[in-house]
């Protein structure tokens, strides 16, 4: 297994996310708008899920937006409503009731989520910055992100590391992570679980088994601990020895470039 010398940051993030996926997983991937937001919400997760299917997880299934098991070798050239509805290669589409029931029956293993605010305990806010009744700005609401954090077994937060994103406490809890740490999530009546990993452009985080505080697991090659901490408004747990995030192999890079995203639809920004 040879490590690649030449890979992009997005490819490193794809490989890191792919490593967290297991054979037989049912994965939820949402929608994104354009540019970097699309790459983070859709591009990297889909490439990661596809890479897992091509390597260690051939039986992984993808639910993208409302499309179950779409043929991702044939992504429509334009993602307009008509093109999505008439995409001739997904097993099932546009059935919100089934998707909701699958969520609350806890059939999903992994979801990919991002948010403008993430806190020390992995709670997310996509609803309102500031006072909920007079927000500045008002954000998009909840969508199913709340449900992912309530029901999905191993939610993965995928977002760029920024000081204004990684805050001590979210202004509004849209999606319950490890709440106030310790056993507080279960005490509030939620299922065990909660966010599993936080994958960013600089480092990868998990949550401490006991305290449930965010904890650095690895830092990407070429990035220092100070650079990571400079982009966070709280100090995560930092073990004495922090490994470097494992680089992609030449085979993983080849698969991403030649088989998974040959037309540069996924990793756009």
């Amino acid at each position, binding site marked *: 297994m040879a490590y690649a010398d030449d890979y992009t940051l997005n490819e490193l993030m794809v490989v890191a996310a792919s490593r967290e996926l297991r054979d037989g997983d049912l994965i939820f991937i949402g929608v994104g708008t354009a540019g970097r937001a699309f790459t983070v919400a859709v591009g990297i997760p889909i490439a990661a899920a596809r890479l897992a299917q091509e390597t260690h997880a051939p039986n992984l299934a993808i639910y993208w937006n409302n499309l179950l098991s779409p043929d991702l070798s044939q992504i429509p050239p334009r993602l307009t409503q008509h093109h999505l*509805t008439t995409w001739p290669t997904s097993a099932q589409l546009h059935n919100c*009731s089934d998707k909701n029931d699958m969520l*609350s029956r806890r059939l999903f293993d992994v979801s990919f989520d991002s948010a403008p605010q993430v806190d020390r305990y992995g709670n997310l806010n996509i609803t309102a910055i500031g006072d909920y009744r007079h927000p500045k700005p008002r954000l998009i609401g909840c*969508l199913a992100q709340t449900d992912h954090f309530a029901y999905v077994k191993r939610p993965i937060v995928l977002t760029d590391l920024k000081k204004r994103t990684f805050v001590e406490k979210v202004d509004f809890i849209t999606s319950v992570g490890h709440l106030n740490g310790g056993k507080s999530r279960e005490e509030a009546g939620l299922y065990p679980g909660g966010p599993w990993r936080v994958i960013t452009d600089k480092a990868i985080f998990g949550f401490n088994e006991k305290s449930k505080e965010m904890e650095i697991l690895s830092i990407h090659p070429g990035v220092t601990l100070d650079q990571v901490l400079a982009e966070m408004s709280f100090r995560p747990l930092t073990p004495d020895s922090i490994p470097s995030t494992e680089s992609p192999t030449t085979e993983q890079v080849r698969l991403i470039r030649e088989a998974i995203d040959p037309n540069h639809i996924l990793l756009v920004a």
Partner: protein
Amino acid sequence: MKSKLVSMAEAAALVPSGSSIAIGGSIIRRSPVALIRELIRQGKKDFTVLAYPAGFTTDMLAGAGALKRVEAVYEGLFQFGQSYNFRRGVEAGVIDIRDFSEVAMAARFRAAASGLPFMPTDALLGTGMAANNPEQIREITCPFTGRRLHAVEPANPDFTLLHGYIGDEYGNVQFPLVRDADDLDPVFAKGAKRLIVTVEKIVPHSEILKNPNLTYIPHVWVEAIVEAPFGAHPLSCDGYYDEDEEHMYYYQACSKPGNFAEYADRYIYGTKDHWDYLAKALTPERIFALSAR
């Protein structure tokens, strides 16, 4: 069966100001946009919108100053970006917002469709949505397991407004496409006190009889049905036509800096009815480009 076919103006006249309305379709697809435009033209206001993801129609009502409250899972315009008019209203404290997750909002619509006083859900435990809305989200204990749950209030609108593909004069509405399995419009329809449907085309009853399995809104639920070709424009009625990106970019270019009035003067108040709107908003070339082929 009795004919329920009415004009767009007659349908909109049925809906008084202050009503709660559930709007079918989602974000930028297959919503009854022509009917919402007519409500605004008639000066109706103070609406409460109940939606799954709210989108363009809710934003138009906000722009027109006709929106009092929203209960939904999302507000935005998908790839066209933010719902600027709605956001300004919430930020100013003018629009009362009640946020729900998808599982919780679907549970509210199911409660209404089943005629139940509430639906239990565990989706909102620990959330800001529950903390800020004790009126509609209340803690209960499961009588079987003792688990902590929430009871959520039914989403039981005064009116549900839908846009569909084809229907007959009696209000039997069908999907012409086997592929389109959108499933929430019928739930919104069942939970409504009164139901108004606009469709792309009114067909003879004999056409409906050929494929009764495609009828997802039966006549007995419907109070009024309206023929409105391109009735979802500028949104998609996928299978028939795609969203009109140029029109949406213009809408956003007006709405982002707070010039909704410019858009409304051109396409809502500046058009006397749906036919006049179609003449001003579409050309034969544009209809050809948007139509699914």
